């Protein structure tokens, strides 16, 4: 059984903050097939198109039949932990300060034997579930979990290195005026976050849900307006060094295209709230989060971007909105590279139309704010990087993978 985490003591302000270190993260281009799977929480290995051999580690030709047709496919993740050992010291600076560290070889039902990191509750000779996780360097690594869930298993130190579990962490929800922001506050409070800071702009302006929001346990309302650089900077100065997860819930949803919009006022607001807002948050909070990537149980862990799936393919009915979302997606890719040295993950959570006021005329299926919030928390607990929430998002993703041009034409209606 995993020893449950205890609420971290308040940090001694005189103590040096240990700098983050990352494990070696270089992978071959082919091996990034595993990164792609890990980013979405899938378990995929190369499967030879010709002889059906399941292959690990990733290769450019099949060791059985020399075929070069080796696509990554989802395969069963079950296996047997055949042998294990404990590393007690290492020349690698990252592992050196994290020993003892258990590793073992897992014989997969699908065929190959994989050397994997071991969850504390795995037992030699017993069945395990293998997962690919993104480690602190953003590279895919194999981690063996016990076949059945065990008590407090999420608190395992090896696993927690690879996840962004909100438990005992301090979260900032950037905009609590929105239904999504309020659902997020509730979900993070329920997930055991230590403090849920919720940003409210223009506090003189009342908003629906205000009283309910204030009643959520461990919610602390703070002034924050992502369109105001000074406001974002001040909030970072106040609380930046104790914020471990940021969920940017600032949204600006308006229908309308590029040609069929009258003027730029709304487009400017879209860009200001979404793209520039993201940049303000990134500049104000990013450096200190990156610095605090190894700051104990409540180390800085993740920046969460909520993105319309139409960031990936424009939806002309909400065309200018889609374009602003695409700008945020591109910025998020940059932020990933910039925050990776601190081991801070950038989660991109893609969704279709939401069950909110600004999608009033859009027919279902729509994603409820509560479902979105649940998916965000689950994504952080799993340590994944790309999350697709709901049928529309899944559908767009699948169609994009097959034929982007067809999707573009079909979105035009």
């Amino acid at each position, binding site marked *: 059984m995993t020893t449950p985490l205890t609420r971290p003591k308040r940090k001694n302000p005189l103590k040096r903050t240990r700098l983050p270190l990352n494990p070696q993260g270089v992978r071959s281009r082919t091996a990034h097939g595993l990164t792609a799977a890990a980013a979405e929480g899938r378990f995929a290995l190369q499967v030879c198109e010709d002889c059906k051999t399941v292959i690990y580690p990733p290769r450019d030709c099949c060791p059985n039949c020399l075929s070069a047709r080796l696509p990554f496919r989802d395969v069963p993740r079950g296996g047997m932990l055949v042998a294990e050992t404990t590393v007690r010291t290492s020349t690698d600076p990252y592992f050196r300060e994290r020993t003892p560290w258990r590793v073992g070889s897992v014989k997969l039902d699908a065929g190959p034997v994989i050397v994997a990191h071991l969850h504390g509750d795995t037992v030699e000779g017993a069945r395990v579930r293998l997962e690919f996780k993104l480690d602190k360097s953003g590279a895919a690594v194999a981690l063996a979990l016990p076949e059945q869930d065990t008590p407090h298993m999420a608190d395992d130190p090896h696993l927690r290195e690879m996840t962004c579990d909100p438990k005992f962490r301090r979260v900032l929800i950037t905009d609590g005026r929105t239904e999504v922001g309020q659902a997020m506050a509730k979900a993070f409070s329920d997930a055991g976050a230590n403090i849920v800071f919720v940003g409210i702009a*223009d*506090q*003189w*302006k*009342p908003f629906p849900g205000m009283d309910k929001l204030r009643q959520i346990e461990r919610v602390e309302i703070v002034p924050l*307006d992502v*369109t*105001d*650089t*000074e*406001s974002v900077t001040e909030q970072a100065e106040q609380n930046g060094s104790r914020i471990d997860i940021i969920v940017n819930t600032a949204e600006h949803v*308006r229908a309308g295209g590029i040609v069929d919009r009258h*003027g730029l*006022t*709304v487009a*400017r*607001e879209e860009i200001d709230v979404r793209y520039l807002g993201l940049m303000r948050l990134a500049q104000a909070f990013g450096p200190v989060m990156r610095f605090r990537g190894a700051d104990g149980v409540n180390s800085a862990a993740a920046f969460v971007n909520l993105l319309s799936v139409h960031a990936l393919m424009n939806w002309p009915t909400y065309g200018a909105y889609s374009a602003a979302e695409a700008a945020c997606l591109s910025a998020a890719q940059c932020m990933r590279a910039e925050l990776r040295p601190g081991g801070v993950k950038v989660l991109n959570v893609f969704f279709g139309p939401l069950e909110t006021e600004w999608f009033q005329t859009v027919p279902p299926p729509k994603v409820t704010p509560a479902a979105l919030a649940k998916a965000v928390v689950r994504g952080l607990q799993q340590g994944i990087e790309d999350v697709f929430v709901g049928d529309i998002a899944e559908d767009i993703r699948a169609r994009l993978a097959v034929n982007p041009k067809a999707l573009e034409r079909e979105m035009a209606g």
Partner: protein
Amino acid sequence: MPTDVLAFARDIAAGAVRVIDLTQTLSQDFPIITLPPELGQCAPFRIEEVSRYDERGPAWYWNNISLGEHTGTHFDAPIHWISGKDLPNNAVDTIDVRKFIAPAVVIDCSKECAADPDFALTIPFVEAWEAKHGKIPPGHWVLLRTDWSKQSFTDYANLRDDGAHTPGPEPKVVKWFVEERDVHGFGTETIGTDFGQGHHFNPPFPAHFYMHGKGRFGLQCLTNLDLLPPKGAVIVAAPLKIKQGSGSPLRVLALVSGEK
């Protein structure tokens, strides 16, 4: 004999003419007009540092700012409202500059507003004021002292389920100001010149409709009106020279005779 403007300047320097700032500080958090979200919105005041003695400009500090024509303490030109759209010289760049300096009367309804945020200014109320202070002379600003500028931002905007609740004039008195008193314009401490619930009036937003329809001006988000006498102040309110501008943030100064 020509007016001695140098003597006037000496009086200002010596304090014989007092200069009172009627302007709110342009800041990001000062409330701005709130419209239904599907309509175009006035941009709030925002400030971005260009450099501050750093690698972006080693020896100098400066900012880029962005805001709407109707953000903060601002001037409304007749072109702002549909009723004034066809008047000559109706935009901030074409208004005769002499009109930017004009005397003012100050009507104090601060007690009434403290008791009722929905206080509406009426003709009888102004007539009672005139009985005390004399008839409003032509060409004067009418400034409505409500002490609203002293409220917290929440009470200042006073937004409730059915919209804003802030004091302002009812339609008849605005028409009367223009037609019977030939006023220069109308100025308030509140976010707009109109009553908070002014969209329910006929016509809606009468301070805008009548004032601008007759080529008169508006000033809003004023402060320090409690420092002005009921009569005798001169207002300096020169908007930025924005090409075909409908209004402009500005510094509003009052000149008042006095020894202090």
